């Protein structure tokens, strides 16, 4: 039996090291956003990048990518940097490249840059080559995203902007945004996820002072920080607070914290896991999602958090159902009060499912999930609009929100789009 040790040093990859720029001429100034396109991709995060790459390989090149900040995986990386995350939980096998076209894959990309990797990072590459679970430095992933974008022509087809409304018609979809309109034959939504807001009953009126969400700046001074949430973001918040020399109270709704290598069971990254969602009644899928999409912390955090709890720097309030949140404090349903100088809320994320862009009757949301055709990932009521990423979880299973799930989604979407645009999709490479 192979024994994996929770080595905390895996979390310490350097960030923002001096990585070489993508070779080639400086990108030219992009032309004005075109008025028409075969496909508009909304969002250039890992899912959007995967869609763009997959479309390129099936010969669909008339693509417009619209992203809020106009950088491939920009918001994804900003969020990671906001919490000081240095490695991805997804292993080397998971990346936004395209399978089946002999493109450079993430692990080979890391091997190419062997000189830039630390000893720990090199060992993780070897772990991956040996078929074991591995962690990927954020620096490697960021550089790989830039490479993937470059080889699929993304920089020349990416415009900053915010899409406000989609108006699907029988032949086209009108995409309206901040100061632009694009008439597209197909639209692929790759909006990602938004932070989950606190339940309405936790406070009345404005958010109390000394209470913030995980993606907001840290307090100027806080000797005692309260962290609410059970996931990887919470672990980073706790780590950062401990690094600042603060004491931490960790409020968990569950009876115990969960340490896991991956955020979902590994079987869901394979066909047999996805099969558990195929042609399965909705109630069963919901039950599976509740059971399998639970918050957990990367295994490597355990030594630090256990040590901090043992020496009193960290107090874990397990089974802490929250009744209310006040100024720098949390009131639990059992009457306990957890007070500090600042309360962090890390309550998970909510997938963006096209609501607000498409009319509600076209999204046809059920329990917060859109009504998608399992074969194509198009909205059943708007077949020219597709969804990739977390929005596809009720089709692909909990791994749908993972980087590897994006590739599964994009394979279905790209094939469907290409088939719709031409009788025969022609693979170029």
């Amino acid at each position, binding site marked *: *039996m*192979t*024994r*994996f*040790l929770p*080595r905390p040093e895996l979390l310490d990859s350097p960030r923002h090291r001096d990585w*070489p720029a*993508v*070779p*080639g*001429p400086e990108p030219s100034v992009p032309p004005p956003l075109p008025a028409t396109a075969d496909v508009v991709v909304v969002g250039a995060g890992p899912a959007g990048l995967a869609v763009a790459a997959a479309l*390129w390989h099936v010969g669909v090149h008339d693509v417009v990518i619209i992203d809020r900040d106009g950088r491939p995986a920009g918001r994804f990386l900003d969020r990671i940097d906001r919490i000081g995350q240095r490695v991805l939980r997804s292993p080397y096998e998971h990346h936004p490249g395209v399978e089946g076209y002999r*493109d*450079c894959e993430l692990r*080979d990309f890391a*091997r*190419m*840059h*062997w*000189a830039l990797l630390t*000893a720990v990072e*090199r*060992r993780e590459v*070897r*772990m991956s080559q*040996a078929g*074991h679970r591995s962690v990927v430095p954020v620096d490697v992933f960021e550089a790989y995203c830039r*490479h993937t974008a*470059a*080889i*699929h*022509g993304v920089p020349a087809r990416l415009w900053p902007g915010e899409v406000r409304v989609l108006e699907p018609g029988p032949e086209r979809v009108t995409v309206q945004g901040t100061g632009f309109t694009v008439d597209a034959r197909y639209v692929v939504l790759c909006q990602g996820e938004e932070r989950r807001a606190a339940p309405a009953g936790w406070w009345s009126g404005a958010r109390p002072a000394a209470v913030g969400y995980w993606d907001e700046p840290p307090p100027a001074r806080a000797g005692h920080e309260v962290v609410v949430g059970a996931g990887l973001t919470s672990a980073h918040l706790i780590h950062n607070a401990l690094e600042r020399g603060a004491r931490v109270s960790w409020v968990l709704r569950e009876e115990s914290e969960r340490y896991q290598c991956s955020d979902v069971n590994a079987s869901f990254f394979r066909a047999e896991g996805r099969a558990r969602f195929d042609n399965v009644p909705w109630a069963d899928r919901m039950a599976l999602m509740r059971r399998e999409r639970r918050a957990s912390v990367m295994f490597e955090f355990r030594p630090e958090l256990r040590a901090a709890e043992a020496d009193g720097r960290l107090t874990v309030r397990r089974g802490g159902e929250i009744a209310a949140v006040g100024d720098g404090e949390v009131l639990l349903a059992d009457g306990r009060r957890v007070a500090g100088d600042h309360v962090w809320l890390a309550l998970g994320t909510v997938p963006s499912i096209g609501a607000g862009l498409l009319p509600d009757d076209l999204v046809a949301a059920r329990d917060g999930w859109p009504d998608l055709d399992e074969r194509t990932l198009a909205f059943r009521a708007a077949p020219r609009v597709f969804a990739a990423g977390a929005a596809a979880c009720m089709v692909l299973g909990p791994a749908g929100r993972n980087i590897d799930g994006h590739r599964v989604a994009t394979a279905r979407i790209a094939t469907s789009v290409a088939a719709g645009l031409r009788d025969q999709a022609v693979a*170029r*490479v």
Partner: protein
Amino acid sequence: MSEYDTVFSLPAVDSEPETELGVLLMGLGPERLLAGLGVAAGDPVAATLVVDQLRHGTRPDLTFEVALTAGAARWRAARPGLTAAAPEAAYRSADLRRQWVAAVDVVVAADVAAGAAQRVYFAACWLRRAEIDRLVSATT
């Protein structure tokens, strides 16, 4: 079944970066290697990434075919020198890293490479010389 910690059995974590890249190139097809030789200047990693860009046709300033032609010209010019520098007995090892180092030794002895990128790509092509020769014959 024994219990062990994998960290003690991970191979070649101290490989030279050029060797790691070389072993990776050993898995690529001759077209990529010859195109890489054609664009090899300076950093071998950059040359590898440029080949990927060219395969996808996303470079406005260069094509894969032009890189192939340039690589073929370099190979033709260097081939006699490489042959002369190669040891009479073929190097035999099951270890890809040793094979790679032996190929680099041939390139260095032949003194045909201008810089690291050419050294790496000449070595990769030398290891696949039969296929490269055929490809070069077919390349105008």
